[in-house]
Every structure is written in structure tokens, then in C-alpha cells.
């Protein structure tokens, strides 16, 4: 018996004596020790963590050839394969993994609003709680640098470009009419409710080869993949109401919403009186739905939007005694469907189709213009990540447009205009991350338009260099082409594509809750459309002889950490631009391009009141206009633009919010332009009329109620 025990003990001793020690030191590429790395033999429990000096040592009873794994967050894993007895006093260098968390990002010209995105300067919530934006995310984007304050329009004017130079995409597919139909001097709003989107990327220049047909800017909206919870939303507002519902079945979900807007009650209470009167104030019925199916390796989305709007307005005109009546009926239907599949080996394919049907019935005094536009965008793209250092993105797309218009004047004269076009495009782009500090995006885009019979090649280049832990420099260059607007192309299809080149230098500094960005740019415009009448007409002479430039500096600062409960951002844009286009007599700064723009947005959370109080101020320097009483062209400027807006969101309880906002609290009388008489009066003087907003201030009251099973969510992110 004693013998047996002895054998047993010696067996144990023998086992331990057969153990090998594995040891070494782990450092980074600069030779600094890495603390806390996990070092182990693959498939076994044998291993250890590195100590304060980067050293490790452990014993193993494994024998033969083994794989030693060294893993550490933010570094590429390292493998040493060898005979156990040789795995001693190893010197191991870990290479920093290229990841979006700490690495360089290709961000020149881009503002992102996403949840965890590093380059995001605004969160989706910020977009909808900005004072003065009244829930319109496009209005919130107008507080970013690079945009100019063109308050009477409502669309995005980027870096000396007109509003038509910005294109909007949902899930990578074109939106053809992103804004509600409206008339002169009645600002429009984006058609989409912001809470359907998980990420918003706003590029003010130098964007990827994946996007084209936009001279100045692209706005990319990505819909949510999987909604968080089932709920019903009800809103009652001073301008209308809405209902929405989200239903989830495992990996399938459906969100629908419908809203009705009618300005009549508001106008009856607080009439807009400046330069116009409503016959029938703006009224619209709209609805959206998103259906999503998420598979293990796939994502299917189907978005539908419908909008029917009507307005009947009479506006002052210097050339007429009476008000000019303008009636508009617009019907817009939009589909956007996409399917994405992720294969093994980091391949993914994307295919999608978007289609829009837009019908306008317009009556201006006794004249009638009916138009219908059918647009579609088909896109197939593939992406392959060869490693986390090299990614390739390529695709082909097809845009088709069918535009028909009938004009009928008071005497029965009619003119039919329109055009059909198919534009085919292809792109190829590579993202190369040389290391944690230096990255390049290199792309090329080719487009061929059949109506214009024109082929274009646009190179795109973006470089980023991370100069310090928190700062980085970026450079971007690209050529951008866009088809002339329907207003000209419907009369003359021999026109060429319009062109810009962007040159951008950007510096960005991010420090825990603080963001600083400064961007300098130069834009060269060429082949802009010109015509020899005041407005494009069927008998005008058209050419591509226009050209221009825009240069400027954009600065952005945001801080949500320094002062408790206060979040603010400030933007300043300097813009120097001149262009000779449309009916311009010579190169001049257009009316939509004020030289200085500044905006300050603040949000203060008052815990005791469970309220968020917001205050926004925006400033624009005088806007150029042409005074025919002087010799010079576009040489005069309006007075400066000022607007101070307030909002207050009060959380009554988890599910109910009361929201109040007022724009232009101090009632600044802003003038956007002057309209001069077509003919001088008896003294040879051209009379004029100031173009001002229909009302100085706008009030908004809303009550938002969310009914969800978990009693937790509210519509704060809906405001």
C-alpha cells in the first residue's frame, strides 16, 4: 500500500518536472512594454498576462509544436509557432491594429451624425433638438459651417453653390425630390422624419467616387437596421398632427407614420402679412413606411414615402398693382428598396432601386404649368475588405429621368417641353490604411449621359494624416459633374455637363467632448449654363460658357463637457465666390452667397425642470443684389441677417413631452433681396420692393406622446 502511494506521488512529481517554461517580452513598435497582453498556447488554458515591464512567463505541460498567441486590444494579434521548448525569452513586437476607434479617419469635407462614429460631430438627437430647426433636420444642418443662411429657401446652399448642387441619398440611393414643393419666399422643409435614420453624413465637398451628379455637396441618410422597440407615437401640433407605429417580429420590422399639416388655424390666429396673403395656406398629407428584414448575413429594406401638398398664395410684385396669385398642387411618391448581403471572406454586395414620381400642377395668375417627372436609380455595388488595411468598393449605376411639362398661357398658347435621359455610371474606389497614422482613399468615377451625349471621368482623392493623438490633417481633391437643371435641359439638349473641382485642406482636433475643425477650400466651376433671357425660355440661347470660383474657410467648435448640462457649438464660414452663370451680365457674387456666416447653437438641460432649453443665434452678412439704378452689376448688399430662436422641451413624464419654440424672438426685419421694377418710372428711376419673410417670427407648440409596452421611450428624439 505504501508503495502505491509512493508511485502515485512520484507520478505527480514527474508530471510537474515535465513542465516547460514559456517566457518573453511584449513591446509595441516603439519598444514600449505592453502591459496586460494575453499570452497563451492556442487551445489550452496555459497562459499568462504580461506584467508592468511587458514580461510574461508561464509553465505548460504541453509538448511538441504549439501556437503561442499574444492578443491585446487595439493591436493586431501575434502568433508564434514552434516547439514548446524553444518558446523562451521571446521578443515580441505587436503592431497597432488599424481601427476606426483610435486610428486615422478619411473625413475631409464630411460631417457625420452617428451614434458611435468617431467623425460624428452631431448626434441624431442634436439635429432634432436644435432651436429654430423645428424638427427639420435640414434646418439643423444649416448651423454647420460651409452652409450659408438663405432663410427664405430652406434648402442647403453649400460653399457658394446653389441649392440644386446638393444631392440627397437614402441608403445609397438617390432621392429625387428631397424637399417639399413650395413657392418663392416660402421656406421648404425636408420630406423625411429624422427618426427613421440611424446615421446622417453631410459632405460639404471632396466626397467619395460612389456619389456623383452633385457639384457641391451630398447628404447621405441611412435608415435604421433594427428598431429598438415596438411603440405608437402620437403628436398634436399647432400646425397639424401625426401618428406612427413600429411593429417588430423577430428579425422583421415595420414602421409606419402619417401626418397631416395645415397652416390655416395658425394663420387665422397669427396671420402672415408681409408682402403676401394666403388664399389657402399650406396643407399636406404625408406618410412613410419602412419594412426591414435582417438575416444572419443580409439586410433587406423597403422604404416608401408619399406626400400630397397644396397651397394657394397671393404675393406682391413690383410690376403689378395687384397681388400675384400662385397655386400649387404637388404629389410625390417615392420608393427605395435595397438588399445587402455579407459573404464569407469580407465580401459584401449591395443592390438597390429607387423610384420617384413627382407631379406638379401650378397656376400663376392665368397661366398654367403642369409637369410630371419620373426618375429612377438602380445601383449594384460590391465591397471587399482584403484586410483591415485595404478595402475596395466598386459598382455600377443607372439613372433615368423622364420629364414632361405643358405650359398654357391665358390666350390658349401652349408649349410642351420635356426630355428623357439615361445616365450610366461606374465607380471604383480603394481605401488604404498604411498604418494607424496615414490613410488614402483613391477613386475614379465615369459617367455617360445619353441625352447630352457626353462622357466624363472624375478622379477623387482623399488623404489623411494623424499628426497627434487627437489631431489630424486631411487633404481632398475631386472633379464633380452634374447635368444642367431641367429648366434649361428641357429646352436645349445640346448642353454639356457642368463641372467643379474641389481642393480641400482640413484640420480636426477631437478631445473628449470637444471638437475643433477648420477647413480651407477652393472650388473651381466650369461649363456653367448661361442663357440670354431673364429666365430660361424655349427661345433663349443656351451655352456652357459660364464659370466661377468659390474659396473660403470653415471653422467649427463644439464642447459638451466643460460646463455641466450645457452643450453648444459654434460655426463660422468665410466665403469668397463669384460666378458668371444663367443671365448674369458678368461674374459676380450671387444673392445666395453672403460673405460671412456665423451660428451658435446652445442646449441646456435643467434637471429640476426635466427640461431642455435651447437657444440658437445665426448671423449672415449682407446679401448681394443688383440695383438697375446703378451702372454696376450685383454691387449692392442687403443689411445683415440676424435670427435668435428659442425652444423648450418639457418631459411631463416618461412618455409625454411638451415642446415650445419660437423663431426670431427679437423680430429682426430680415431682407433677403430686392425686386426692382422691369421698367423705370417717369423720372427714370427703377422702383423696388424688399423681399422679406412672410412673418418675422414663427411660433410652434407640440405635444408628443409615445405609447410603448415598456413605458420607457419618448419622442424627445423626435423633436
Amino acid at each position, binding site marked *: *500500500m505504501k508503495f502505491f502511494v509512493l508511485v502515485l506521488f512520484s507520478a505527480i512529481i514527474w508530471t510537474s518536472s515535465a513542465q516547460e517554461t514559456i517566457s518573453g517580452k511584449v513591446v509595441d513598435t516603439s519598444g514600449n512594454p505592453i502591459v*496586460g497582453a*494575453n499570452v497563451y498556447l492556442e*487551445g489550452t488554458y496555459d497562459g499568462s*498576462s504580461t506584467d508592468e515591464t511587458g514580461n510574461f512567463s508561464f509553465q505548460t505541460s504541453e509538448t511538441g509544436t504549439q501556437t503561442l498567441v499574444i492578443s491585446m486590444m487595439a493591436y493586431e494579434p501575434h502568433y508564434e509557432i514552434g516547439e514548446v521548448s524553444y518558446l523562451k525569452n521571446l521578443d515580441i513586437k505587436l503592431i497597432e491594429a488599424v481601427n476606426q*476607434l483610435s486610428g486615422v479617419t478619411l473625413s475631409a469635407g464630411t460631417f457625420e451624425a452617428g451614434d458611435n462614429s468617431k467623425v460624428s460631430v452631431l448626434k441624431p438627437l442634436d439635429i432634432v433638438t436644435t432651436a429654430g430647426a423645428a424638427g427639420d433636420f435640414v434646418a439643423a444642418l444649416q448651423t454647420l459651417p460651409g452652409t450659408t443662411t438663405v432663410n427664405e429657401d430652406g434648402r442647403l446652399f453649400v460653399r457658394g453653390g446653389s441649392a440644386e448642387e446638393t444631392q440627397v441619398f437614402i441608403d445609397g440611393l438617390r432621392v429625387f425630390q428631397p424637399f417639399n414643393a413650395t413657392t418663392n419666399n416660402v421656406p421648404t422643409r425636408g420630406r423625411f422624419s429624422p427618426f427613421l435614420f440611424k446615421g446622417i453624413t453631410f459632405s460639404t465637398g471632396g466626397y467619395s467616387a460612389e456619389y456623383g451628379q452633385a457639384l457641391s455637396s451630398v447628404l447621405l441618410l441611412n435608415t435604421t437596421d433594427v428598431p429598438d422597440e415596438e411603440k405608437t407615437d402620437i403628436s398634436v401640433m399647432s400646425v397639424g398632427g401625426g401618428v406612427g407605429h413600429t411593429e417588430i417580429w423577430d428579425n422583421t420590422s415595420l414602421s409606419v407614420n402619417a401626418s397631416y399639416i395645415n397652416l390655416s388655424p395658425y394663420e387665422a390666429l397669427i396671420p402672415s402679412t408681409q408682402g403676401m396673403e394666403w388664399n389657402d395656406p399650406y396643407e399636406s398629407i404625408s406618410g412613410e413606411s419602412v419594412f426591414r428584414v435582417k438575416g444572419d448575413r443580409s439586410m433587406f429594406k423597403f422604404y416608401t414615402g408619399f406626400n400630397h401638398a397644396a397651397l394657394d398664395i397671393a404675393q406682391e410684385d413690383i410690376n403689378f398693382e395687384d397681388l400675384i396669385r400662385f397655386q400649387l398642387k404637388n404629389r410625390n411618391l417615392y420608393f427605395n428598396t435595397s438588399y445587402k448581403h455579407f459573404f464569407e471572406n469580407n465580401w459584401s454586395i449591395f443592390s438597390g432601386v429607387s423610384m420617384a414620381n413627382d407631379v406638379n400642377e401650378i397656376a400663376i395668375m392665368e397661366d398654367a404649368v403642369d409637369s410630371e417627372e419620373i426618375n429612377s436609380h438602380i445601383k449594384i455595388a460590391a465591397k471587399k475588405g482584403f484586410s483591415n488595411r485595404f478595402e475596395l468598393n466598386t459598382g455600377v449605376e443607372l439613372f433615368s429621368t423622364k420629364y414632361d411639362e405643358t405650359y398654357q398661357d391665358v390666350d390658349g398658347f401652349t408649349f410642351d417641353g420635356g426630355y428623357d435621359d439615361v445616365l450610366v455610371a461606374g465607380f471604383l474606389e480603394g481605401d488604404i490604411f498604411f498604418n494607424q497614422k496615414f490613410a488614402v482613399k483613391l477613386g475614379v468615377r465615369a459617367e455617360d449621359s445619353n441625352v447630352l451625349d457626353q462622357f466624363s471621368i472624375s478622379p477623387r482623392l482623399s488623404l489623411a494624416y494623424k499628426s497627434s493623438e487627437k489631431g489630424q490633417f486631411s487633404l481632398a481633391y475631386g472633379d464633380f459633374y452634374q447635368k444642367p437643371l431641367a429648366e434649361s435641359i428641357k429646352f436645349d439638349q445640346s448642353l454639356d455637363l457642368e463641372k467643379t473641382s474641389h481642393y480641400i485642406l482640413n484640420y480636426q482636433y477631437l478631445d473628449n467632448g470637444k471638437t475643433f475643425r477648420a477647413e480651407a477650400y477652393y472650388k473651381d466651376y466650369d461649363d456653367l449654363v448661361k442663357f440670354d433671357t431673364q429666365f430660361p425660355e424655349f427661345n433663349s440661347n443656351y451655352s456652357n460658357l459660364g464659370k466661377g470660383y468659390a474659396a473660403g474657410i470653415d471653422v467649427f467648435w463644439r464642447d459638451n463637457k466643460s460646463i455641466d448640462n450645457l452643450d453648444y457649438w459654434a460655426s463660422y464660414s468665410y466665403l469668397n465666390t463669384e460666378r458668371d452663370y444663367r443671365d448674369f451680365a458678368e461674374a459676380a457674387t450671387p444673392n445666395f452667397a453672403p460673405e460671412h456666416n456665423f451660428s451658435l447653437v446652445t442646449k441646456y438641460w435643467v434637471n429640476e425642470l426635466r427640461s431642455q432649453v435651447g437657444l440658437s443665434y445665426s448671423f449672415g452678412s449682407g446679401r448681394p443684389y443688383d440695383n438697375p439704378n446703378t451702372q454696376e452689376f450685383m454691387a449692392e448688399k442687403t443689411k445683415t441677417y440676424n435670427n435668435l430662436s428659442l425652444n423648450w422641451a418639457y418631459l411631463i413624464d416618461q412618455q409625454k413631452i411638451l415642446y415650445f419654440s419660437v423663431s426670431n424672438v427679437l423680430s429682426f426685419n430680415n431682407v433677403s433681396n430686392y425686386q426692382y421694377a422691369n421698367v423705370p418710372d417717369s423720372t427714370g428711376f427703377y422702383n423696388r420692393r424688399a423681399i422679406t419673410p412672410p412673418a418675422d417670427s414663427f411660433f410652434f407648440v407640440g405635444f408628443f406622446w409615445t405609447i410603448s409596452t*415598456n413605458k*420607457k421611450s419618448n419622442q424627445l428624439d423626435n423633436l
Partner: protein
Amino acid sequence: MKKLIVTLFIAVSITASAQDRYTEGMSKAMQLWGEQKITEASNLFERIAMAEPDNWLPYYYAALVNTTASFGEKDVTKLTQQLEKAKEFSDVAKNISPENPELLVLEALINTAWIAYDGETYGMTLSGKNAQLYNEALQLAPNNPRVIFSKAEWDMGSARFFGKDITPYCQDVERAVELFATAESKEEPFYPDWGADRAKQVLAQCKS
């Protein structure tokens, strides 16, 4: 003497089996965690996880260690690393063991760590998600004390914020405390068993 030998023999034979290697490894990792050696504990759980790819528990603990260590962490780089690691492990665990209420509670805990770090940024986006996670967990395991307690504590937080009555949630906590006391130990060794102490603390606050 005979007894000793038999005991020894059994012990040795268990040592030889993989099962005991697992028990030993997990116990060692738990001990390290208890000693606040976070990196070592996390690394050991990770090593066990890599060697036992069909067992959700080591992944669960690797994630839990990193999550609990993130509460109160002020260094954003470290916090992000820990929580991303936790999320990664919890996702793998979820693949191994789908519809597991413990893993839903874990995921909600990771979200709570983000919210605790920066409520302004993450509160709005993640609180809806958490509510959904807790509801799902409760459906799967209506009598799991950890699920009941975590959900109640979460609901209590927002009820306090809105100045609402927290009594219904205190009742849930009380029920959780009772269930903690009567819960039979699971057959699966190292099945999560945390929460009882914290639940008692919260219940004491309810009553004070």
C-alpha cells in the same frame, strides 16, 4: 490511510480529465476577479473561452469582468476598449447560447455602462434598447431573480428621475430577494449567481 488514498486517487483521476481543468481554470479566474486583478481575470476567462468554444460561460464572464470594471472608469479610451471587448464576447456567447436571459441582462449591463459614462450621448439611444432587452429576458425567464432585479433597478432609475412612485419596483426587488434565497443552484457549474447582495441593498433603500 485507506481513505486518504482513495481520496487522492479520485482527485488525481479528476485532474486528468478535462472537466476538472475547466473547474480549476474557472475557479482560478474567479479568484483573480475577487482579488480585483481585472486584466488577469479577463485574460484567463478569455483563454478558457478560446479553448472551450462551445461553452457560453467563459465568454459570459470575460464580458462581465470587463463590463463591471467599466463602471466609474473615466478614461474614455480604456472604457471604450473594455466595453467593446465585452460586447464582442457577449455576442459570441449569444451565438453559442441563443435566447439566454443571462446574456440579455449582460447586454443591458454593457449598455448601462455606456449610459453611466455619458448619459447625454448614450441615454436616448440605448435606454429604449435596454427596456426591450429586459422585457425579452423577463419573457424567457419570469422567475429568474437576476432578471427581475436588474429590470426593477433599471425601471427605478427613471421613475426616480420623473418623480414617480417607486413602490411597484420595490415589490419586484423584494420578490427577487426571495427568489435569490430560494433559488436552487443550477446544475451547470459556474452558472451566474450574482445579484443577491445588491438586491438586498436596494431593498434596504426602499424600506428606509
